[in-house]
């Protein structure tokens, strides 16, 4: 069994776009976000429609920024957190391209890059769009309580990111190369606290990174940056502990998207989460670093907690997954 793949033809990321909500725009990477929203409903009637529009806008702009036309794009690979991934499908309704809906919760973004990369590397498609979105208000009402309910958040909680990121990968053009990746496996250490996603996802991230190092023969030192999706402050600490136990030290070059998206003063406890978290941070901030060669080699592992309100209601623990992709400038 081998879960690490290498792309011989190294598809390139030729264009990105990011859309962020008001809170995200006030955060650490706020001024790098391409389209800044002042209204988290984006002029729509419901939060679900707003999320769809956010994703649609990101995809449309990514295609434009990549210097492509809609007709050049063969397939859109997208996903989000809502039931039946409605944000992604309703966004894809506006395009005449092919569509593959993906879901591994917040790990969907790297799953889409892995899948899209494989399709391009194999020569099956020429241009593919990878995109994910999430919306605080739509996620909150699906997973937790109504927005206006006066309840407190425990200190280990995270805040679902409102925003989307989309990128175009292509077999031609200039941009960072996707050189391969590691397909995640579902890992469950028995965490049942739905407010502590970081703790549920850290073992999955550790498993994927460890497998990647073993199977690719690389070490953390081979990468300038090891990025995880939305572990938050607590999850990041647990990840470092778990990898340390296996003999790998990622202390120096590990960055978590959830940890850097908000200012500490915003009191979002452990940081951001959601399918849009990793895509927004990558497309708004990290992509530029890769383009300017500030980062040369990056391992990007988005993490997802694969629970639903039904499974946690039935007393199930929280399985998690992490997919990793390696990207070189």
């Amino acid at each position, binding site marked *: 069994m081998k879960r690490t793949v290498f792309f011989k033809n190294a598809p390139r990321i030729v264009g990105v776009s990011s859309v962020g909500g008001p809170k995200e725009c006030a955060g650490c990477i706020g001024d790098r976000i391409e389209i800044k929203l002042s209204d988290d409903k984006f002029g729509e009637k419901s939060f679900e429609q707003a999320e769809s529009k956010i994703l649609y806008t990101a995809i449309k702009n990514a295609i434009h920024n990549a210097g492509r036309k809609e007709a050049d794009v063969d397939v859109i690979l997208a996903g989000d957190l809502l039931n039946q991934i409605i944000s992604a499908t309703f966004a894809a309704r506006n395009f005449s391209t092919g569509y593959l809906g993906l879901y591994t919760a917040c790990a969907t973004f790297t799953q889409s890059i892995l899948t899209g990369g494989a399709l391009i590397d194999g020569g099956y498609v020429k241009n593919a769009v990878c995109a994910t979105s999430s919306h605080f208000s739509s996620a909150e009402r699906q997973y937790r309580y109504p927005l206006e309910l006066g309840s407190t*958040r425990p200190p280990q909680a995270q805040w679902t990111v409102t925003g989307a990121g989309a990128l175009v990968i292509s077999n031609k053009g200039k941009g960072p190369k996707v050189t391969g990746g590691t397909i995640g496996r579902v890992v469950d250490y*028995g965490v049942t606290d739905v407010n502590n996603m970081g703790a549920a996802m850290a073992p999955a991230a550790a498993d994927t990174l460890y497998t990647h190092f073993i199977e690719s023969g690389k070490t953390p030192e081979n990468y300038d940056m090891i990025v995880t999706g939305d572990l938050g402050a607590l999850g990041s600490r647990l990840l470092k502990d778990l990898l340390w136990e296996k003999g790998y030290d990622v202390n120096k070059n590990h960055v978590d998207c959830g940890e850097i998206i908000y200012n500490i003063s915003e009191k979002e406890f452990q940081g951001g989460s959601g399918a849009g978290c990793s895509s927004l941070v990558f497309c708004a901030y990290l992509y530029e670093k890769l383009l300017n060669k500030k980062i040369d080699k990056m391992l990007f592992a988005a993490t997802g907690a694969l629970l639903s309100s039904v499974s946690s209601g039935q007393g199930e623990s929280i399985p998690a997954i992490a997919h990793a992709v390696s990207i070189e400038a």
Partner: protein
Amino acid sequence: MKTAKDCVNENYLSLVSMTAPKTDEKRSLFRAFWVGGAICSVGQGIRLIFSEVLGLSGDELAAYVSVALIFLGSFLTGLGVYDRIGKYAGGGSIVPITGFANSVVSPAMEFKTEGYVYGTAAKMFTVAGPIIVFGVAASVLVGLIYFVIYRVF
């Protein structure tokens, strides 16, 4: 098939509980105490006004005060203020009757997008439903105990 029990990794879970930040109990208790107390004082104030100005008393007075507080709770929920009070005060704003109003109005508002019948009306009691069910069940039980003791002794 693995079940949730088979997945439990004791070592890891104890590491998590060691590293996870704890809720500041003293601060939570203090906030709940003063906000909850303040809400109840407002209720007491309304009670005084109603009994002095309107000349109400007994059950009628209690009902009027409850109605006034429920209105206040619902109104503040509609304005988007109550969730902020709740975020700060926790139990202090959940336990009084204003919290009950909040738990009914907030899902009603939230699910308006799914229509008035299948949204607002159907989802209105998603949060408050259990409180009503157990409240009624408990009152029946207490009533039975009271009845038995009253008859026996």
